[in-house]
Each structure stands twice: as structure tokens, then as C-alpha cells.
């Protein structure tokens, strides 16, 4: 895997990822993309599903691990499996639905039948196979390690990868914060999803997920719209000298990045008070205040996003109340799926407000970012202009702090998140060709 030469000479990965810049080929080269699907998506933990999507025994979901079609199942005993959705006979996918319940899957091509644990249980007219044919040799291929962290199901193809909790590392307490906003941690990922496709590389989304520099510019339309009724509210703080404010960006290690907007808020009810108005806000607020009195501020805050952006490398972005998944489709094409969430342990009206809240950003915020991703992909086509900068904050004295666990913290507009995660990218890409 060294055919990605430019100018006829072999370049090493280190030449493409420098301390303050990355090479354009990481975003436009099909061979590098193919290598990423094998190495980045093949050797670290990949988010596959949320348990609430397969809460019943024999539930299943189809999806992808990198570009590999997979089938995530819960068997009759409640155990989770991630299987390649690829018949062991002549490769057809065995399941073509997005989700449902099934004890077994019969391949529609020649009828081989697999249990939801992956075992091959039946082959039509078996006397056509010789005595050395053993069904146990032809179960569905499987993702060897599948683990759930409090409902978030991850899998890895790498038998040698560290445990999931070790991999989550410093991201784990932040994920706990997000989960624990729901009473009893009861998060439900069954509220439909915005599936947004853009013509650009998948890393443009990951770069953006920890980017506190862009909101004042890329989201100008949203900020202007929000000012129609007076105060801008939500997100306005990104526009007012954000580096002097209390927000920060962090590189958490293992590729994970984080933006904290919570320091903009102090008291219970502040999330709610600062939220841009959404359909039904006043009527449902009145109803919740009438019924829940002193507890209303806490409940109303739960209708608003978490005020964190937690990015778990390479494909899970926790943003607001949404669980966003990056699905690379091609070197220059990506689907971002924004799964909306509801929570247990709150009055119905809180979840109704959550739905209206979670429609806002996919409609009026994200499309402008994706337009910018697409225009960045167009700009990246210029071969003479080789570099993508990630140097903001780099080499500026006293701007970054590194704690004992190696977590790097800086002002929210710094690009330290990119400088950090590309080191993890580099580690994974070197596994095959050190």
C-alpha cells in the first residue's frame, strides 16, 4: 500500500500529516480512502448501533462498518452480534431490510439459511455437496469483538485492540454526562433520523465536529434568522470574541475531540431560557410549569441540547441531543445520519419539545456547513495547492494546556482537535505499512 505516490515518488504517511497541516490527498485520493476503510475502520472501535434500536430479542439492523455491509443482531438470548451481510455461498447480502425482527435470514439467491447468531443452519438439497462439506465452516463472517457501553454498541475487527472502555478513555465521563441527562440513563434512539448526504470526504465532517472557529461565519444565516425576534440566543456566544469566553476545545486522545459550550450556562433553566424558540414552546412550557412547578426548569432543560459536542473517532458525533453517525460512501461522498433521541422518565411534553428542537439545526444550521464541505472538496481538487491548514493556536505561547492524562485544552477556536486526531489516524494507517 504505497501506490499513492505523487510526483512519481513514494511519500510516507508522515509526509502527508505534518504537525500543523495535512496533505490534500487525504481528502481526494481513492487509494487512501480504500486504505482508510481497511485500516481506520478496520482497527479501531466503530460505533454500530444503539441498543434501544434492537431492544427486543431477535431484533436486527443493517448498516456499514466502513464500506462493509453488516447486520447487527440480538439473538434469542439477548446477546449482540455484528455479522457481515454477505452470504458465504456466492456473496449476496442475506438481509435487505433496514431493521426488523428475525430468528434467521434466508439468502434470497440460493436459499442458504443463517441463524441470527451467524451459524449456517440449512442448505437446499444438501446431497449436492460432498462428505467434506461442513456447515460449521460456512457461518456468516463476524465482527469478532462487539461491546456495548451503556447502550452504545461498538465493534472492531481488530482482535488486538484495547477494550472499549480503554478506547473511550477521557471521552467516557463526557459520554456519561450525556447519557445521565436522561433519568436512569434511559436514552431511546427510535425517533427517526435526518440522513444528509454531501459530496465531500468524510473527514470534512470530523474536522468540523470539533471546530469552534466556524459558527460565527458558516452559521450566519441561522444567527441572523434567530435575531428576527430580537435576541439571537442560542450559539450567539460563538460570534462574540469566543476565545475570551469560557468555552474550550479538547483533544481527548485516541482520536476523540470535544467542545464544551456548558460554561456559557450557570443555573437550572438556563439551557431553556437561552434556546431559540421552537414550535409549541410557549404552550408546552405553560403546561409543564403548571404541572411540575419547581421541577419545571430541570425538565425544560432536558428538551434542549446537551451543549456539548463529543466526537468519538472515527464515526460517532454526539451533538445536542442527537447521535450523529458518519458513513463514508466514497472518497468524495458521505452520509451523515442524525438520529434523534427521546428519553424515559420525563413527561411526554418534554419529548415533544425535544423533537421540535432536534429539527432545527438539521434544517437551518447543518446545510450551510455541508455546502461549505462541498465547496472545500471542490477547492481540494487544485493539485498545485497541496495543504489543508490546522495551525490555529499552534506555537502560540501559553495557549494550550496538557493535563496528566494527556488531554489537550485550548480556546474554542483552536484547531488542536485536528492536530490531535490526525495523530491517531496516522497510527492506524501505519499498521499495514509502518
Amino acid at each position, binding site marked *: 500500500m504505497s501506490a499513492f505516490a505523487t510526483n512519481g515518488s513514494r511519500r510516507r504517511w508522515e509526509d502527508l500529516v505534518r504537525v500543523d497541516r495535512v496533505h490534500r490527498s487525504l481528502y481526494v485520493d481513492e487509494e487512501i480512502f480504500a486504505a482508510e476503510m481497511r485500516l481506520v475502520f478496520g482497527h479501531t472501535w466503530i460505533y454500530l448501533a444503539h441498543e434501544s434500536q434492537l431492544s427486543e430479542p431477535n431484533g436486527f439492523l443493517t448498516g456499514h462498518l466502513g464500506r462493509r455491509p453488516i447486520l447487527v443482531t440480538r439473538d434469542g438470548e439477548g446477546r449482540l452480534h455484528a455479522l457481515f451481510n454477505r452470504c458465504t455461498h456466492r456473496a449476496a447480502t442475506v438481509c435487505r431490510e433496514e431493521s426488523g425482527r428475525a430468528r434467521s435470514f434466508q439468502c434470497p439467491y440460493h436459499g442458504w439459511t443463517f441463524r441470527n447468531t451467524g451459524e449456517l443452519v440449512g442448505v437446499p438439497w444438501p446431497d449436492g455437496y460432498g462428505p467434506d462439506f461442513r456447515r460449521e465452516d460456512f457461518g456468516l463472517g463476524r465482527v469478532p469483538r462487539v461491546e456495548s457501553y451503556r447502550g452504545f454498541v461498538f465493534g472492531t475487527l481488530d482482535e488486538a485492540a484495547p477494550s472499549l472502555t480503554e478506547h473511550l478513555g477521557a471521552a467516557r465521563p463526557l459520554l456519561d454526562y450525556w447519557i445521565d441527562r436522561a433519568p436512569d440513563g434511559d436514552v431511546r434512539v427510535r425517533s427517526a433520523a435526518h440522513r444528509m*448526504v454531501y459530496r465531500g470526504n468524510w473527514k470534512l465532517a470530523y474536522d468540523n465536529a470539533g471546530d469552534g472557529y466556524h459558527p460565527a461565519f458558516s452559521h450566519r444565516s441561522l444567527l441572523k434568522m434567530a435575531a428576527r425576534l430580537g435576541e439571537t440566543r442560542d450559539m450567539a456566544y460563538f460570534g462574540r470574541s469566543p476565545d475570551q469566553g469560557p468555552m474550550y476545545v479538547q483533544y481527548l486522545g485516541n482520536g476523540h475531540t470535544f467542545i464544551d459550550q456548558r460554561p456559557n450556562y450557570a443555573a437550572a433553566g438556563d439551557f431553556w431560557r437561552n434556546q431559540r424558540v421552537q414550535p*409549541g414552546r410557549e404552550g408546552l412550557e405553560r403546561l409543564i410549569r403548571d404541572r411540575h412547578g419547581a421541577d419545571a426548569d430541570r425538565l425544560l432543560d432536558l428538551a434542549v441540547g446537551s451543549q456539548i459536542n463529543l466526537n468519538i473517532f472515527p464515526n460517532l458525533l454526539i451533538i445536542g441531543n442527537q447521535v450523529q453517525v458518519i458513513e463514508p460512501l466514497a472518497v468524495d461522498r458521505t452520509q451523515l445520519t442524525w438520529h434523534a433521541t427521546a428519553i424515559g422518565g420525563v413527561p411526554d411534553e418534554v419529548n415533544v419539545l425535544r*423533537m421540535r428542537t432536534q429539527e432545527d439545526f438539521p434544517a437551518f444550521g447543518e446545510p450551510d456547513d455541508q455546502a461549505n464541505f462541498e465547496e472545500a472538496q471542490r477547492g481540494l481538487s487544485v493539485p498545485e495547492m497541496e495543504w489543508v491548514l490546522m495551525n490555529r493556536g499552534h506555537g502560540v505561547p501559553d495557549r494550550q494546556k496538557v493535563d496528566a492524562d494527556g488531554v489537550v485544552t485550548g480556546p474554542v477556536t483552536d484547531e488542536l482537535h485536528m492536530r490531535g486526531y490526525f495523530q491517531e489516524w496516522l497510527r492506524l494507517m501505519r499498521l499495514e505499512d509502518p
Partner: protein
Amino acid sequence: MTQAEHTDTAAWSYHVDPAYYRELAAIAGEWSDAWPVADAELLAETQALLHREARLLDEARFNEWLELYTPTCLYWVPITPGGGDPEREVSHAFDDRRRLTDRVYWLRTGVAFCQIPQSRTRRLITNVEVIDEPAENRRRVRSNFHIQEFRAGQHKSYVGWYGHVLVREQQGWRIQLKQVNLIDSEHGHENLTLVF
């Protein structure tokens, strides 16, 4: 703040309450009912309104388009085919009068980069059926649409059906509900920022 000001639904949203959702669910559940064939005059009057709406959208005359809608209107583009349950599911658009006003304002800010350049659209509306319900002061309309969009060098087409609920006001018929049902609503879409 006086109660009178709270009735301006471009600024306040007191009315989108549990009863509003119940009424919506009842309407959304009845789009597939059998309707009697409408007489020619009723059909022509209804088509004229749909055509006028189509022209305002295709000509990007969004402020005029907004005036076709009632103060308690809903412009709804569900994700779940058929509509699903908007109290428990998100939609592509679930716009009360205030959010619809915001949407038009947003499109006209000049800095919505996803609409620079702006979408050019033309829409074909066919298979129009209408039921007149004078006792409820409303007409329900269903139709098929095919919208062709051109933007940033790309042609895209969107196909589906509309459900309109019209109510009679002093100025004439206005739109209380527009439910836009894309045949691929729950699938991946690029830059879904045009107005259907």
C-alpha cells in the same frame, strides 16, 4: 406583554399543544379514504390555488407564498413515510407559522450558503382530488408532485404527494395544512433546503 400580542403566531406559539397534535393525527390518518368525484368547478378552483402556490414557490416569491397560509398553519414534511408520530419523531420540516416565517426569513438572509446559488425549481402537480366539507369550513386536497431542481450544476428531482387542508377565511381559501410526502423521505438526501 399583553394577551393580544401573544396571538401573533409569527412571534408566539401557544397553540401547538396536545390538542393540535391530536387533530393533526386525525387528518393524517384519513388521506387514503375514498372520496366522491369532485365536480368540475370545485376541481378547477382547487387546482387554481395549487397552481398559484406552485408558481410563487418556483418564482421564489416566498413572502407572497407565506400569505397563502393561515395563522395556525402547519407546513409539514415528515421523515417517516405516511407521517409517523410527530410527537415522538422528528420531521424534515414541522413549521408552525413562526418557524415558517423564520424559514422564509432564513432563505432571504443572503447568507444561507446552502442556497447560494439559489435552487431553481419547476413543479408539476397532477392527480388532484378534493373533498368539500362545508360543515367544517374546509376542503381537503390530495395531489401528486414532481419537482425538478437545478442548483450548483446539479439536477435533482423530488417525487411524492401533497395533502392540503384549506380553510375559508374572509379573503378566500387559505392553507391550514400542507403535508409533503416524499417517496424517499426517510432516505439520504443532499441539501434538502428547497421549499416543497
